[in-house]
């Protein structure tokens, strides 16, 4: 009897595993008609429903926001939408108004231009202003608003104003006041952008943001190199009367010593007399600079 029961258990266990494998082979669960759904959008309602679990719920919404951003960014869907990103961040910061990373990272996620993000610097600023209302002494939020104004809106007056405001808050670093002055004097200057990212790369609390700052610095280096290479191509065209067809032409003419590569090691591309990043380079897309600086 015991053996029969044991055999029956083994058989049934095998059947369960086999059927699960068959299920997977046939494509797994059916695709749900609606994948992105947020049942409760009101932060006030959620704060009340959370009882004493508000901080834990904030963590869950934060994880969901990170997953939503990362999942949408990696998605191959042509019409990918980040429509849940702001509501998730709003819920996170309402449930835990001191969730500083949610304000700071959230503003970065929201500002990023499509397809890397929703391209909503206005929502990023709204989120950071909410953070400043909750914690008026946090210079990091004022600096982050200045950063969004500087980098994504290219509004250097506003950026300088926010950097100045950040510099006046307690525990603001010494470099904040000079940054405000530099931004006002030379806003949009690649050098002031480099200064801003350099500070972020040095002071960022988490690896992800630090790495992003390093990538931005590499982008700025690449933009400098592209300008130099373009000048070499233009000089070649001026002397030879035609654009070089490859890097070898420039090497033979003495303009270059090797095949130029971007800071990640990916060779630059030369196409119809224009120098550009290789589409496979992870520095794509380069930030858009104001026309007056081009």
């Amino acid at each position, binding site marked *: 009897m015991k053996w029969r029961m044991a055999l029956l258990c083994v058989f049934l266990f095998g059947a369960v595993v086999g059927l699960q494998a068959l299920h997977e082979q046939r494509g797994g669960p059916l695709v749900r008609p609606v994948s992105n759904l947020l049942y409760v959008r009101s932060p006030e309602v959620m704060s009340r429903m959370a009882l004493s679990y508000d901080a834990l719920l904030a*963590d869950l919404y934060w994880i969901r926001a990170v997953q939503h951003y990362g999942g949408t960014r990696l998605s191959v869907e042509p019409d990918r939408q980040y429509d849940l990103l702001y509501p998730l961040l709003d819920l996170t910061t309402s449930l835990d108004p001191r969730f500083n990373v949610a304000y700071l990272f959230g503003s970065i996620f929201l500002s990023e231009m499509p397809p890397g993000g929703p391209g909503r610097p206005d929502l990023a600023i709204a989120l950071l202003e909410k953070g400043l209302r909750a914690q008026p002494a946090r210079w990091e939020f004022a600096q982050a608003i200045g950063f969004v104004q500087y980098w994504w809106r290219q509004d250097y007056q506003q950026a300088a104003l926010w950097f100045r405001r950040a510099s006046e808050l307690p525990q603001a670093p010494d470099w904040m006041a000079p940054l405000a002055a530099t931004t006002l004097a030379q806003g949009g200057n690649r050098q002031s952008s480099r200064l801003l990212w350099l500070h972020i790369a040095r002071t960022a609390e988490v690896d992800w943001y630090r790495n992003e700052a390093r990538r931005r610095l590499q982008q700025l280096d690449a933009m400098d190199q592209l300008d130099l290479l373009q000048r070499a191509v233009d000089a070649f065209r001026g002397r030879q009367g035609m654009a070089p067809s490859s890097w070898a032409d420039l090497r033979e003419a003495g303009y270059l010593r090797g095949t130029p590569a971007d800071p990640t090691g990916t060779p630059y591309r030369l196409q119809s007399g224009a120098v550009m990043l290789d589409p496979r380079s992870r520095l794509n897309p380069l930030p858009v600079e104001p026309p007056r600086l081009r």
Partner: protein
Amino acid sequence: MRTIAHVAVNVFKESVRDKVLYSLVAFATLLIAVSYLIGQLTAGQDVKIIKDLGLAAIATFGLLIAVFIGIGLVWKEVERRSIYGLLSKPIRRHEFILGKYAGLALTLFVNMAMMTVAFYVVLAYMNTQFPAEARSVWPASATDPRMLLAIALIFLELLLVTAIALFFSTFSSPFLSAALTFGLWVVGHFNADLRNFESVVETRTAAHLARALYYVLPNFAAFDVKAQVVHALPVPSAYVATTAAYGIAYIALLLTGAVVIFARRDFK
């Protein structure tokens, strides 16, 4: 006093026999699994999330133990008819009630103490996973001893829940006792809303009623300082003392009520 201690020890032994301490295994497994997975799921804030989860899990496991054991403390004895044998011994009815309460309080204390140890072990491990540079920007260290304050207030909150469950179990069925205890626990978190009710209602009667409920119903939200300790915000000692005094007074009230009701109960 010795009689109360005897009853209490028996309640503790019974809860150990009922595998209540298995909840510790679930707690430890949950924390270890989450601490392993959390780095893959989030961008920073790993230690904050472990702290939030650990404190919430301690509160939840404790709440479930307090309610589901608390409602059966008296009812079980009546249902098994062992109450006749017990009351025929030299045990006075108030000693029986207080012993039952002390036994469950001891079970909760042992349970929470072991969960706290597991919690700090996981946090100490998490502490080793980050470089000193990353740790320097945390608002508090991973093994911040101030979290013990939040755990102590959770314990006091659970003692109050236990007193409520025991109070209801002296005169009602387990299902009704559980529903009423959970109901009070939920309503007790909306206490602040009751205070502000007068600003949203037009009738003075409703406003007065809400105000009265605000003073009468247990204010469970007062025991919640989890967010403050996780963010290393100050928790004034006067606040802790007032909350502790409030909790002890409410527990004393409920136990007195339970003793009075149980003393008048006819088991014939």
